């Protein structure tokens, strides 16, 4: 998985210039239930993985999210 690409896609969803791995998702103004929906859609269509509701709630940083998607791909 191309993590740089992943953070770029995440920054589009969150409507910011850049997302860094250590960034806490809840700190973004745009991180709401709609952003979560967009992340699920991205994971499904671009990475072919399905993230469960309770899994996404347990994610803290952007890096956690990237690792979760990567781990699910294997």
């Amino acid at each position: 998985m191309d993590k740089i690409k992943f953070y770029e896609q995440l920054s589009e969803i969150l409507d910011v210039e850049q997302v860094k791995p250590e960034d806490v998702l809840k700190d973004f103004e745009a991180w709401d239930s709609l952003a979560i929906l967009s992340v699920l859609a991205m994971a499904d269509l671009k990475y072919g993985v399905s993230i469960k509701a309770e899994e996404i709630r347990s994610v803290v940083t952007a890096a956690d999210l990237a690792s979760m998607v990567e781990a699910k791909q294997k």
Partner: protein
Amino acid sequence: MVAVVPKEEYRFDDEYPIFKLTEDKAKRFKKMMSLDRHRIAPPGVCASDLCQHGLQQLLNEGMLKKEEIGALVFVSQTPDYTMPPTSNVIQGKLGLGREMICLDINQGCSGFLLGLIQAFLLLDIAALPKVVLLNGDTCSKQTDRCNRISYPLTGDAGSVTIIERCEAENPIYVDVKNDGSRYRAIMIPAGRYRMPSTPETLKLREVEEGVVQSLEHVHMDGAAIFNFTMEDVPPQIDEILAFSGDTRDSIEQFLFHQPNPFILKQMADKMKIPSAKLPNNIVSLYGNCSSVTIPLNIALNCGEQLLREKRRVCLSGYGVGLSWISMVMDLGPLAANKIVDYEST
């Protein structure tokens, strides 16, 4: 068929200040969900009023005679009363005969197709002349007007479908699935008997920024619903196409329930159905009106055409329950297929 919508139309561009959205956030949401406008019934107007208006119009136009109605099936999650059944209320108000069946069904998104199945069974088993299927919901009354996510996507509507037997062989393929273990994914927790209405259940709470709701409003687990629509519905479409011997090419139109444009677009992409064959415009123009999105979809996107000819269609309704139902059939030619406005007096 006739679909009925309240005359009152509201535009997102005018409404977003009540959701306390910044212009940026409103723009982002509008783009993601292709929001434009929706129809909202004024206070005091019930789903049954919309349905009754449509049925009265078909009676006035001579499309149907009162004595031909063997059953009135009313599918809704916003009935007039807990008791009596709303179908009885409508029967009484329209002065229909006594020799008939009145039946209410509690179902939402899959409710048009569940209602059709019920109508087919009544025609078959009870040998009734004609069955009138009414679908109606005033979903706007199940959400708070200041809820920035659910309210803009919501709409109110009703529809009337008259079903009768035909002479020609015309098989209809049906696949029904339910999973009650996920009943909490879409629900109104309070206000009936499990959790009766109290001042506490009516209290508005902010569950996330700008999302206010009480326990008597619709609660949706967005992530769970998204996974349901992406993982459970597409395989059912594959199954029913295999069952009916169809392909994505032989089906001329996929007329699906429309929860919101974002989810439907993702589903269509996942199922590899071209957008030209799968209309996705109901929520932008009318709002998500539960079981009425499919009849509205048929009227808006195939209105004139279905008056002249038949089309090979795949219908699919999925949501609350969880319940998902799909059908493949030759639809049409229909005697009527239009959308009318309801003006409250």
